[in-house]
């Protein structure tokens, strides 16, 4: 099969899978609904309960899951290629810890829940992630032309623990109800009940995915070695910068929308590589679609498994993702 055909098949198969999951998910839930009524034009929307549940209660949440899942899986792929390390995750470089600290502060300080129509927590967490990205980036550039991936990794890991300490300190100062809300936030939560947060997340995600589109061939070369990429005419410094900033932006936007949902950024890329191989022109789109499908499916389980209770989606992804990942590890040795 030529590479052109492989790329086409990957897009069609994984894309169709993601669309299928995203259509099936809003139909699933404690109240059964029927697609025929949902799209029926004869019943006015105000009287159409099925349509209301579909479009107001469930679809925003499914779309949020798709956006967060694909952003985390795709940035996982980019971080792994950038750091030449298959164990890197979107959270390795401190982006999520910064986002969490921002969210903690907003929750604990009871920031006014509405700045220009957006609630404070996602804005604060997005700002926190940008702050973390800025610090790590500045450190990695400080003593190096371009960016040093070693410094990047060390700075990221250190910042992760530093921010975690600050988060614990903020929680220590907070009262009981605040602590409960912050812990819930840390578990990851896709409880989105309007389209506003989705619209807010579109610009940063669109920007990141536009950058992702030009990266795959260069990531192939970069994941062999910086020298081999440079000798083939890749502008290594520019590519590393683009990869780091776009993947961080996508991670920041995803975390501010759904919280730090774990495991997607590592399980999905690995699973995808088992199916399509290592070529990033296949791995990146397949992971983006696969991440969307996986998180939407996990969120559907989280809504329905213990209904009417709702298990935080981060718990589901870790419970499914963890053992699955271990199985992959054992199977491959």
């Amino acid at each position: 099969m030529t590479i052109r055909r492989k790329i086409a098949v990957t897009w069609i198969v994984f894309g169709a899978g993601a669309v299928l999951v995203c259509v099936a998910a809003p139909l699933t839930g404690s109240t059964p609904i029927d697609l025929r009524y949902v799209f029926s034009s004869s019943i006015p929307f105000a009287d159409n309960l099925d349509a209301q549940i579909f479009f107001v209660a469930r679809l925003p949440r499914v779309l949020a899951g798709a956006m967060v899942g694909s952003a985390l899986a795709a940035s996982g792929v980019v971080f792994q290629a950038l750091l030449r390390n298959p164990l890197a995750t979107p959270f390795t470089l401190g982006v999520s810890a910064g986002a969490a600290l921002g969210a903690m502060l907003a929750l604990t300080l009871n920031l006014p829940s509405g700045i220009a129509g957006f609630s404070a927590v996602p804005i604060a967490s997005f700002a926190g992630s940008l702050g973390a990205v800025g610090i790590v980036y500045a450190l990695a550039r400080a003593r190096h032309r371009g960016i040093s991936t070693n410094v990047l990794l060390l700075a990221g890991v250190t910042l992760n623990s530093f921010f975690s300490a600050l988060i614990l300190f903020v929680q220590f100062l907070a009262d009981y109800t605040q602590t409960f809300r912050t812990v819930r936030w840390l578990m990851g939560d896709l409880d989105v009940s309007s389209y506003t947060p989705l619209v807010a997340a579109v610009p940063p995600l669109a920007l990141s995915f536009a950058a992702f589109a030009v990266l795959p061939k260069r990531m192939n070369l970069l994941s062999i070695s910086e020298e081999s990429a440079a000798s083939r005419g890749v502008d290594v410094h520019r590519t590393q910068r683009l990869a780091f900033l776009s993947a961080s932006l996508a991670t920041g936007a995803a975390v501010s929308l759904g919280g730090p949902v774990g495991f997607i950024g590592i399980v999905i890329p690995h699973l995808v590589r088992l199916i399509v191989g290592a070529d990033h022109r296949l791995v990146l789109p397949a992971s983006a679609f696969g991440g969307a499908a996986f998180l939407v499916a996990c969120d559907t389980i989280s809504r329905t498994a213990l209904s009417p209770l709702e298990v935080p989606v981060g718990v589901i992804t870790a419970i499914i993702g963890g053992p699955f990942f271990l199985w992959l590890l054992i199977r491959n040795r």
Partner: protein
Amino acid sequence: MTDCGLVANGVTFGYARSAPVLEEVRAVVPRGGLVGILGPNGSGKTTLLRLLAGLLSPWRGDVSLDRINLKTLGRGAAARRIAIVPQETQLAFDYSVLEMAVMGRYPHLGTFEVEGPEDLAIALDALRATGTAHLASRPFNTLSGGEKQRVVIAGALAQFNAPTASDATEVLLLDEPTASLDLAYQLEIRSVLLALNRTRGLTIAISTHDLNLAAALCRDLILLDRGRVLAAGSMPAMLEPALIRKLYDVDVDITAHPTAGHLVVVPLARGNMRGNTQEPRAARRRDQ
């Protein structure tokens, strides 16, 4: 014709400010040549190769390919005519052998362009030239050291277009190509490089501290000592006990080997650089 090929002229370079690794180095890799860059560890061999490949920019001096400065030539154009093979290749992800070879076509493709049948043919041809075509579908990480090295060489070859259209110099640079290989693989790489040079007219430069590899393979040698060129010239002229003693501080015996058909260097004893006036007892050159 004189300056055709890859030439470093008066090149000074260092990684840290005010600590040059190379000083005023002139290195000529003539078109169709097979040049060895020889020197002890830390003499700047790898740095010189990276400068010749255009991966580093010299502080002073310039590197030119067929009399065109690499800076003027541009990153992409240089990558279509100069390829470099690193000492060792460790993959983080499991690419197949064919994928590794096809990646060499990168400098010929646009941002969103996918390699076509012609690129695939060139990659396969490169695998054939290094005797690795039968491994095409194998994961790179499952290969032996020698096979890996040959596949990486194939990927470098794939950076060039078909060898027919070559009134331009195409240069393959190899950093210690046999350093981590056992005896059989060393011979294998040696014969692959010789064949590429002879049948394809490929210009080749290798860095090595293996004197016998240089003796068996190279036509010209550049002796690099602590960042400066100690001597440069034809291989037999450079493989002189006195020069080698100066370079490595080792007394050697150099003889023409009757069956191998080339010079052989036998290290005899660690020299004593302080007693420079004393003529080394054992260092002599026997010609047939």
